[in-house]
């Protein structure tokens, strides 16, 4: 079956540009997560959706970061006015309906490079 997909896989942006990263979760998965993985580090939590509701955005590093999941399926992470420190791999994960232990299934990530 299809796993979590992310697009684009690679994105190069000039400092100050806006970017949009897309995540297609596994069909039927209620929960969706975004993580940021800097070079040589473990992933760090950014935000979490249950269906279309954003239940936790405590990990978003600044108000330049915005995520949405309007129909409870596809999600977009938007970064405005990108800075060099935003360069990282952005990982999306989805997990089955609430009530099951939350094994999260990860996509391949989008590698963002800000010049």
């Amino acid at each position: 079956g299809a796993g979590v997909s992310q697009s684009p896989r690679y994105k190069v942006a000039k400092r100050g540009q806006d970017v949009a990263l897309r995540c297609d979760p596994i069909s039927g998965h209620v929960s969706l997560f975004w993580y940021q993985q800097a070079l040589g580090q473990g992933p760090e939590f950014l935000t979490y959706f249950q269906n279309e509701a954003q239940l936790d955005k405590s990990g978003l590093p600044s108000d330049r970061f915005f995520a949405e999941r309007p129909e409870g399926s596809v999600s977009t992470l938007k970064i405005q006015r990108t800075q060099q420190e935003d360069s990282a791999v952005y990982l999306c994960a989805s997990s089955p309906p609430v009530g099951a232990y939350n094994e999260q299934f990860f996509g391949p990530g989008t590698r963002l490079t800000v010049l």
Partner: protein
Amino acid sequence: AQSVTQLDSHVSVSEGTPVLLRCNYSSSYSPSLFWYVQHPNKGLQLLLKYTSAATLVKGINGFEAEFKKSETSFHLTKPSAHMSDAAEYFCVVSDWGFGNEKLTFGTGTRLTIIP
């Protein structure tokens, strides 16, 4: 608050010898613990999980881990290393059963297998 500490950033073992990757955790609740593996240019893959059932957990590819509450540890082991085990390994904690769905990753241990 939840956190994990991976005690070694890099471990090298010879092919056919045992593997030990160490992890200590901190959690306000009875946590769920996971080990994920990340091969170069591939997505994160779940190796095994502990969710308050048996304390000795068996995972894929011959890996296992033992939850020791008294030592707050969840070390990953494998009896005999294979070349294909070379990758980055992350110890992960979650308080999912207590309303906190996010995963908190350690900084990772890079496992190198010597032929």
